[in-house]
């Protein structure tokens, strides 16, 4: 699967990773090499198999509907790069 610059930009945008123009080329060839690895998958005889998402045959464990967490706003907001008045702050978002 050849990757062009537009494709690299698109993936970088989906992943919210800034990629400078002068990085595009090397990134493109890096990614292409790794994606080459995946050609091997196409050859595998797996059409008859179900995907394995979890190693063990587990069912989802569930917890009771009880409030077990209290107010930790102070320590949580203290971790934030920008917080004010009890809110986490980000540059203004226009809807």
């Amino acid at each position, binding site marked *: 699967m050849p990757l062009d610059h537009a494709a690299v930009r698109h993936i970088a945008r989906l992943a919210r990773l800034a990629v400078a123009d002068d990085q595009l080329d090397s990134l493109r060839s890096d990614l292409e090499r790794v994606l080459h690895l995946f050609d091997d*998958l196409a050859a595998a005889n797996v059409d008859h198999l*179900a995907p394995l998402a979890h190693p063990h045959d587990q069912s989802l464990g569930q917890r009771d509907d009880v409030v077990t967490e209290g107010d930790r706003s102070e320590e949580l907001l203290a*971790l934030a790069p920008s917080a004010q008045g009890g809110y986490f702050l980000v540059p203004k978002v226009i809807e």
Partner: protein
Amino acid sequence: MSPASIATLAADLAAGRCSAEQLTEQALARAQRAAHLNSFIRVDAEAALQAARAVDARRALGHELKALAGIPFAHKDIFCTKGITTTCGSRMLEHFVPPYDAQVVERLGRAGAVSIGKTNMDEFAMGSSNENSAYGAVTNPWGSARVPGGSSGGSAAAVAAGIVPFATGTDTGGSIRQPAAFCGVTGLKPTYGRVSRYGMIAYASSLDCAGVLARSAADCARVFDEIAGFDARDATSVDRAADRTVDALDQPLAGLRIGVAREYFGSGVQDGVAARTHAALRELEQQGAVLVDITLPSAHHAIAAYYVIAPAEASSNLARYDGVRYGHRSADVRSLDELYSRSRAEGFGSEVQRRILVGTYALSAGYYDAYYLRAQKVRRLIANDFLGAFESVDLIAGPTAPTTAFGLGEKSGDALAMYAADVNTVAVNLAGLPAISVPAGFADDGLPVGLQLIAPAFAEARLLNTAHALQRVADWHLQEPAA
């Protein structure tokens, strides 16, 4: 001073021949002398000494103490430690101080073990050489220009250098076993779900396992018994009683069938590595094991499947690092878009960025079926291979890594060459099985070789028992690098 086993140290403490405070002071001093290895991201001397004194005080009051009480050790910097900076080897979390402890941290803390600091690691556990750390590479104590392996390179080096008798690690594609092999120590990757992932910073959720590196299988057993167990805070934690593996260490091997997979001895394997592996297996034969030739026909698909699944899960797990609630935020931000893309580009190293991009691609519209879904099917194929093999053998063996520790800088420019170092280990993670790397002597280059043993799910006791049997007759695990 020859590093003693946990059992010896525990006996010394119990008999009053030394105090926990003294042991901790000595560990801290060794850490200081070995600082050039860069195996630690941070050492917390004061906190460690305080914890040690607390153990001594409890002993003095006659409290009943566990085997690990007062034993100095280190945590891989991937485990959240309350009030103590946890970086995961990344700039993104350079100043992140978790408000809570990981399950593994809680358990070892309750057992009274004394952490002296957080060990260096490949950033977000992505790497096989510990050269991807934002805090500098780690040096293998066995060779100053050699990598220790990764991603738990700091933990492996710290144990190999005799700084601490054990260290915690994590293994997603070999990150405990491969550095254990490169550094001549014993490294246990438990069955997936055996040890809680709560508080363990996620890389690839369906593959990540917490485990231990130590100087012997017996020591690994002691630590494993302490950290294993169900945790309701991790929905993938397995609710299944576990017998103490320490109690099974001395069971004779008689008739144990060890499958030797021919796929693990391919052309990429260094001669010395193959030779040492066979030698170690012969020792086990002497002890009563029976060696059986087996085949794992899908083994060659493992790398491709792993490098689709792990980056895919990682691309999603690392989306939370956005500069909003914690972690690095770029200074130069004029919009939400820039907040995200600049903070992440600045906070993540190049290997992490590469894997995020690969993973994003593998999940993206039009590629999901061909990549991610297909890789999950290959994963089942590999798991079936193991199930089939375990119908006729009890364990599967091979070299942990195809080569001994490569040179610093040797593979860091070639991602694919680096990935190939994991060829023998990733399949185990895909299948969720337990495995151990045991020192098996030294190749011609004087560097350690590791023997990998793989067991069926939940058979850690058998793994540790077999590794222990080897360590009763061979002393490779007791060798120390020159200071």
